[in-house]
Every structure is written in structure tokens, then in C-alpha cells.
């Protein structure tokens, strides 16, 4: 309305400098205008205020709305999967209120496994959570159904859908989407993932290349060697280092073979005479060859030891052993793993190198070697525990808990399987004494590992001292609340 524009314009400049023109007034108001002039006399401001008030009400009484044929947001497709039960939806509400991401992950996992979707009313809350906690994205995506897929196209922050066609996502998606689809493809078809990466490699920037190499760890195999070795000409130092790091995890890579060549010469079996020369024993001799190819050190093997009591040569051998698959020693010595470990343990230096063999057994998983190495009661091989059979894992943990509680706490928090009641009790007896180190939030973040059956045993883990005992009582209340929610999740999906 032009006359209203005129009202605003006059207000901006002020009636001292501009008088509101009445020529543009709507015809309906022309008659009233004369009355207003009569009423206000020479008071310019009063006249303006009356005219403006009149026009404002004229405008708001005759409001004309925008009318436009718009494409709109479209309509979400009907769901193909069933909605979760009302009970499960109720638990989801409580889980969201509890602000326990691990329980939310647990709920989504159950929902996904049952092939169900959550009710649309949860979409805003869950999509917002998934933008903050990326590990939830895939599950949220699967459990939000067609409605979620539709709404994600309207909100760029929620657009973490990889689309129908993985290859299309790889070619046109965001970096996060591409990394996700590459990771999935590397698990299902490592060769295809490698082929995609090779095709687009030249067009990626350094940060992108680094991100994709990190993803390449999934499904790493000998077919990747040529590509990774070709990256030594890359400009980015970080990209080169990451490529080398990956090559160090592939047994057939030229780098690992180079390490093995050095070790073949450096670690030899020798017979030593003893008891005045009447008997002899077989021992290992460790001596680096006089010349070591520079490529060994270029690959990240340190030349100098940082500890005074460990010589440089011993340190180099230790590093090389740690990157050599344990099966190498079986070929090298033509002995069984248990005999090889015995051989290493005969000398002080050899025993020390069994630690490096432990590292190697975690880099190149080998359950047989893991079982032999973890039978050493004086050493703790944290990284090998996952290769042990489940019952052995727990025994191993319980055996070492008193000596290395804090170290083992880090490990048990990373396990995938739910703890047994026995293990949980051992852990709580340890953590309940350290309330500052293990506050309530600690239990919230590992609640997926805590068995619900331990609820009845929590009081038996109460510390003797007063302060930790008081804190533990409060922690127990919280733990019981979380365990109850966990139980409800399970029950609601198994009714």
C-alpha cells in the first residue's frame, strides 16, 4: 500500500521536515481526512498520528495475503517398515530424557535389528542428536524410515543419508557421506572401494586424501599395496606417513619384507657351550647387520633409543620385530610358536623382545600366538585380549586386575561384549573406591557393558571408607535407574 509507505517515510524523516501527503490516501478514507484536519487544527504531529493510526487500522482490516502456487515440500512416502511398539516409544522418550547416548545407541540398535522405525514425532530430537554424535547417524538414518529420508532432504544439517546408490553418493556426496560410503564398501567389497578411491584420487585435496586413507584401514589387504606404495610421491607429508602406516599393517608389503630381511640377519640361533664345555644350549643372538637400508628408517623406524639402559641397536630390533608378523619366526626358525617363545625367553634381551612380538601379534592378529603370549603371568598384553576366546578373556582380566586396575579399566571400557556379573562386580569393587576418578558419568557412558543382573549385587561393592561409600550409594541409585532403562529397552523389543 503506497500510502502506508508514505507514512513510514514521513516517520523516518519527521514531521518537522515532511508533511504526510494525503494525495495517496485510499478513496475510502478521503472523507475522514477532512474531519481529522478539523480536529487537529495546526498540530502537525497530531494530524500525522491520526492519519497514520487510521491507515494502520485500514491496512490491518483489509489484510491481503500472499497467494502463490508453490511446489511445497512434497509428501513423504509411506513407511515400508512397521513402527516400533508404544512401549518401545515410551522407553525412547525416557532414554532421550536420561541423556545417555549409549542407551540411545542401544535402543536404536534394537529397533534396527527388529526392522522397525520410530514414530515421526521423534525425528527432530533424534536427528539433532545425530548431528552432534556422528556415530548415531547411520542407525538414526535406518530407524527413521521414509519420513526421515524425506525430512533430511529439507534440512542440510540432517542430510546424512547416503542415498540409494552408493556409487552416486561416492561421486556427489559430502566428504562425510563419501567417507561413510567408502567405509561400508571397503567392508563389503574392498576392491571396489579401492577402485573408487584410485579413480578420484587426483582430484582430492590433502585433507580429503588423509580422511580416505584413514577409512582404507577397513578391509586392508595385499591388493592395496601397489596403490599405497605409489603414494610415496605425494606432496603432503601427512598423506605419505599415513600410507606408510597402512603398509606397515599389510604382511606382504615390501616394507614388511624389508624389515624381515633385516631381522633374518639380525636374529640368529646359535649354540653356546656351557658347564666347562661339557654341554651346549641353543640361544638367540641379536646383532644388526653392518648396513641397514635407509628405507627402513625412512619408514618411521627410529635410529636412537630414548632410554639409557636400552641400546640403539636393541631398540631398532625391537621396533622391527613389532612390525613383523609372528608367523615369520615360524618360517625363520622352523619351530612351533611355543618353542620360539621359549627360545626368546632364554636370554634377557630375547625376553624383552617378546613384548615386541606381542605388539606384532596385535597388528597381525593370530590367536595361537596371542594365547601363548598371554600365558606369561608377568606380562600384560592388553591388545591381545580381544583375540582370546571370550571365557579366557575374562579370566585373563580378572587375573591381572589387582596389579593393573587402571590400565585394565581403559580396556574393559572399550570391549564390545557385555561384562559378566562376576567381572562387573570386580570392576565396581575397584571403581567404587575411586569416586573422583569414576564419577556417575563414567557409568553412564559404559552402561551398555554393565549386565542388568548386577543390579542386585551393587550393595556388595560398597567401599569400607565413609566418603567413597556415600558417593557409591548415590552412584548406585543412578546406576539402577540406567540399568532399569536398559532392561526396559530389551523388554520392549522382545515382548
Amino acid at each position, binding site marked *: 500500500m503506497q500510502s502506508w509507505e508514505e507514512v513510514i517515510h514521513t516517520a523516518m524523516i519527521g514531521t518537522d*521536515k515532511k508533511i504526510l501527503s494525503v494525495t495517496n490516501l485510499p478513496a475510502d478514507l478521503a472523507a475522514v481526512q477532512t474531519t481529522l484536519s478539523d480536529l487537529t487544527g495546526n498540530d502537525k504531529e497530531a494530524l500525522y498520528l491520526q492519519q497514520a493510526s487510521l491507515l*494502520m487500522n485500514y491496512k*490491518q482490516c483489509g*489484510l491481503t495475503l500472499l497467494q502463490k502456487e508453490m511446489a511445497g515440500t512434497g509428501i513423504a512416502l509411506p513407511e515400508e517398515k512397521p513402527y516400533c511398539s508404544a512401549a518401545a516409544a515410551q522407553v525412547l522418550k525416557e532414554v532421550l*530424557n536420561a541423556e545417555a547416548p549409549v542407551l540411545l545407541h542401544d535402543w536404536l540398535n534394537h529397533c534396527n535389528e527388529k526392522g522397525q522405525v520410530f514414530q515421526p514425532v521423534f525425528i527432530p530430537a533424534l536427528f539433532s542428536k545425530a548431528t552432534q554424535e556422528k556415530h548415531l547417524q547411520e542407525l538414526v538414518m535406518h530407524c527413521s524410515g521414509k519420513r526421515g529420508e524425506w525430512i533430511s532432504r529439507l534440512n542440510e544439517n540432517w542430510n546424512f543419508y547416503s542415498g540409494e546408490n552408493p556409487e552416486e553418493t561416492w561421486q556427489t556426496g559430502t566428504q562425510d557421506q563419501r567417507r561413510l560410503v567408502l567405509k561400508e564398501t571397503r567392508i563389503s567389497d574392498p576392491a571396489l572401494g579401492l577402485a573408487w578411491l584410485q579413480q578420484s584420487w587426483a582430484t582430492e585435496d590433502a585433507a580429503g586424501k588423509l580422511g580416505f586413507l584413514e577409512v582404507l584401514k577397513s578391509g586392508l589387504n595385499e591388493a592395496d599395496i601397489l596403490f599405497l606404495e605409489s603414494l610415496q610421491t605425494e606432496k603432503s607429508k601427512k598423506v605419505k606417513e599415513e600410507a606408510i602406516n597402512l603398509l606397515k599393517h599389510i604382511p606382504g608389503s615390501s616394507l614388511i619384507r624389508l624389515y624381515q630381511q633385516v631381522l633374518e640377519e639380525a636374529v640368529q640361533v646359535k649354540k653356546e657351550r656351557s658347564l666347562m664345555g661339557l654341554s651346549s644350549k641353543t640361544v638367540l643372538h641379536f646383532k644388526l647387520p653392518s648396513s641397514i637400508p635407509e628405507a627402513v628408517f625412512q619408514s618411521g623406524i627410529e635410529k636412537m633409543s630414548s632410554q639409557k639402559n636400552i641400546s640403539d641397536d636393541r631398540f631398532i630390533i625391537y621396533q622391527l620385530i613389532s612390525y613383523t608378523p609372528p608367523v615369520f619366526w615360524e618360517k625363520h626358525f622352523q619351530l612351533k610358536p611355543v618353542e620360539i617363545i621359549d627360545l626368546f625367553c632364554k636370554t634377557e634381551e630375547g625376553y624383552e623382545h617378546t613384548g615386541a612380538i606381542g605388539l606384532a601379534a596385535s597388528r597381525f592378529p593370530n590367536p595361537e600366538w596371542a594365547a601363548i603370549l598371554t600365558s606369561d603371568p608377568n606380562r600384560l598384553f592388553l591388545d591381545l585380549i580381544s583375540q582370546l576366546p571370550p571365557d579366557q578373556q575374562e579370566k585373563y582380566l580378572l587375573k591381572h586386575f589387582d596389579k593393573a586396575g587402571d590400565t585394565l579399566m581403559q580396556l574393559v571400557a572399550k570391549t564390545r561384549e557385555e561384562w559378566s556379573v562376576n567381572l562387573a562386580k570386580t570392576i565396581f569393587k575397584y571403581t567404587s573406591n575411586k569416586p573422583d576418578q569414576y564419577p556417575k558419568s563414567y557409568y553412564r557412558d559404559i552402561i551398555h557393558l554393565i549386565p542388568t543382573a548386577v543390579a542386585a549385587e551393587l550393595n556388595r561393592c560398597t567401599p569400607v571408607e565413609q566418603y567413597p561409600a556415600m558417593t557409591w550409594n548415590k552412584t548406585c541409585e543412578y546406576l539402577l535407574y540406567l540399568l532399569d532403562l536398559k532392561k526396559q529397552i530389551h523388554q520392549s523389543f522382545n515382548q
Partner: protein
Amino acid sequence: MTLSEDQILALAPDEASKKAGLGLANMSKWVSKGANELAIWGECQGSGSKPYQAQIDLSNIAFKCSCPSRKFPCKHGIALFLLYARQTASFTVDKQPAWVTEWLEKRAEKQEKKAAKEEAPVDEAAQAKRQLARHEKVIHGIHELQLWIKDIVRNGILSIPEKGFPWFENVAKRMVDAQAPGLANMVRQLGETNFFTEDWQQQFLEQLLKIYIVAEGYSKHHTDETPFLQDLRSWVGFTINQDELKEQSGITDTWLVLAKQSNEVDNVTTEKYWLYGLEQKKYALVLQFTVRGQGSQLSLTPGLYVQAELVFFPSVNPMRALIKRQLNTQYTGIPKGFSGWEELTGAHTEIYSRFPVQGERPYIVEQLTTVRYNNQWWLCDQSSRMVPLRNAEKSIWPILAISGGQPLNMVLIGSPAQVEVAGLWQENQYLLV
């Protein structure tokens, strides 16, 4: 009575109480619990030696708990109600304990006493003298306000954004001194204009003109005994004796509680309950003011229907009302609203033609969809007319998630120039946004 979990949580005084209530809505926390058609009760084991006794009057939702919390309702009340909504079957239906009976009886007694309470004789001469003195004060304040407004339009509003908060606050305080708190609030709102938006001049001018209309209207028409004057008096800040108002007969209807809005300023919480009468097709606004720590008289739950008699404050467009009598009802369903924006703007024109200054109003509008246009979200009716959505960043995603792009009946608050969505119906279920 069956309330949804959201409806129960809407009764909580703050977020912390909601959370605590949810935490306590757990069977293991309750030593005993029972219910009948009048009340729900339960004993919750707290940190004390004796469990806390929580109870809820169902006939006219009210809470009581023996815990020392100053919040109302406390977490135990919220938790008990939640637990009842989730697991009604687990509540015993035995005879209610003595402590529940005692409380219900006291409540009934109080109601009766209140009803029977006789007004103290009013000294009419003194009252008239007081009213005249106030009127003179208000007129004096209005004259000052008119001069201030004229100064603004004489000098132009371009330099207004530089004036800052105190410039407006001084005038607002002057209006408080002149016993015109309504005008004081309007001046404060003027100072709260968002000067960083492109059209701040329009927003500022519209609010300035509203103040002018009220001030000018009251100074010219204060002798007219018409509903029109009542609107002016209300905007100036005169209050109406609610006890007198309650003596008048009201409108009895089944009212749907459309929405509850609350805000807290200086420890005083203002709750706005928007209602819609199914038979009379009338909208109503019931206000409740509570000082922090004090219990509130009224607990209406959005989405719930109440059978009640409402007395409206005198106005040419009656909207504000108080509840004279309230009963619960089991009614459910979707009320009929405006068929589209054209019908709504028609009704709106009538309202503005009767009185040019209006606050926000609720509307039920049928079959609305959401549309993105000009970097803004709009609500579009079946004839492709569109109204911009206010606070869209907060509400658009729940609306889209629930609707899936399909048209839905919605409850809106605002004006046809801009609205926000308070709730919507999905498959006969009313959901708050």
C-alpha cells in the same frame, strides 16, 4: 482421567522438575500407590526416614505432597501422575487413605467457604475518590506520553535505535508512577523493537501508533460507559475486580485447552491458557500470575477438554476470561476451525473494525501445509494463500516430521500477519509443537 505424558510434563514448573519427575516415575521408588475416580495417591521413598505422601485431586487437577520442596507441583506429584498414566493397572483401587480423604475434604470445605464468603461492605464514597484520583494521575501521565510521542514523530525515528534501553525505561517508569502499567508495558515493548531487522521502522511505528491510539482514546473517551472504554481501560492498565466478575453469569461450554504459554519476569510467572469453546465457537484467554514458590490455583493441560463456565472480561472483542466453575470431561475430538486464511482474515477484519489495538489471538485453521518461499517458512491453506511462520527455526521441524508434508489442522497464535504453531492434530490426536 487420562493425560498423555506430554500433557503431564506441561504441568511441571520448570525443566529441572520435569527431569526429576521422570527420574522418579519408576515403580521401585514408590512404597505404595492407589487411585480412584477422585484422586491418585502414593508414597515415595525419599532421602528422609518416612516416605513422602503425594496426592493429586482429579476432579480439578491439584497437587499436594509432604516433601519440603517449594516447587509446585513438586517432582513427586509429576512422577506419580506419570506413573499413573503409564501403568494405571498397577494402582490399587482400595479405599483411599485417611491423609487423602482429609486433604480432599479440606479442599471441598475451602471451596464452599470461598463461595459463601461475604464481601465486606464497600465504602463507595472512598472508592469513588480513589478512582478519581487515579484517573487524574493517568490523564496526567497520558499527557506526558502524548508529548513524548509527538516529539518522536516531529524529529523522525531514524535516530531511535541509538537511544538505548534507558530512554524507553524512563518513560515506562513514568507511566508506572501515573498508575498506567498497561501503557508502561507498551512503552517497554516499543523499546524492545528489534532494530537489527530490515523492517524495524514499520514494527516501531505500528507499536508507537498503538500506544497513541490507547492514550488518545482514553483521554477522549474516559467518560463513555461502553465496552469500548473497557478495552481502553484494560490497555491503560486498569484492573477489574475478579470477584465481582465471577458473580456475573458466564458461558458454559466444553473448552479445549489449545496451548499454554508461560514466562517469568522478576519472580512472577505469567501463564497464558488459550481455550476454545466447542459449542459457542469462542476463543478465550485465561491468565494466571504466580509468585515463585507459591502454588498456582489453576492447572489446565493443553490438549485436554474441560467443561467449564467462563466469565469474559468486558470488551468489544471478548477474549480474556476467568474460570468460574470447572469440571472435567471425557470429550475428545477435533473442533472445527477456520477453513482457510480468507475466512480467518474476514473474522480478523471484524475484530479490528471494533477496536484497532489487539493482542495475540489463537486460531484453529484447517488443512494447512508448510511451504518454503523467499528464505522463509509459510503456512499455506488449500487456496494457496500463505502466512509467514514466526519462530520457524524452532517449530518447523516438529511440524514437518509429524505432517510428512500432508495438510493438517493446526492451532496458531498470533495474527494473520504472522503466526506460530502451538499444536496440531494427527489422526485425532492433539500434539503440542
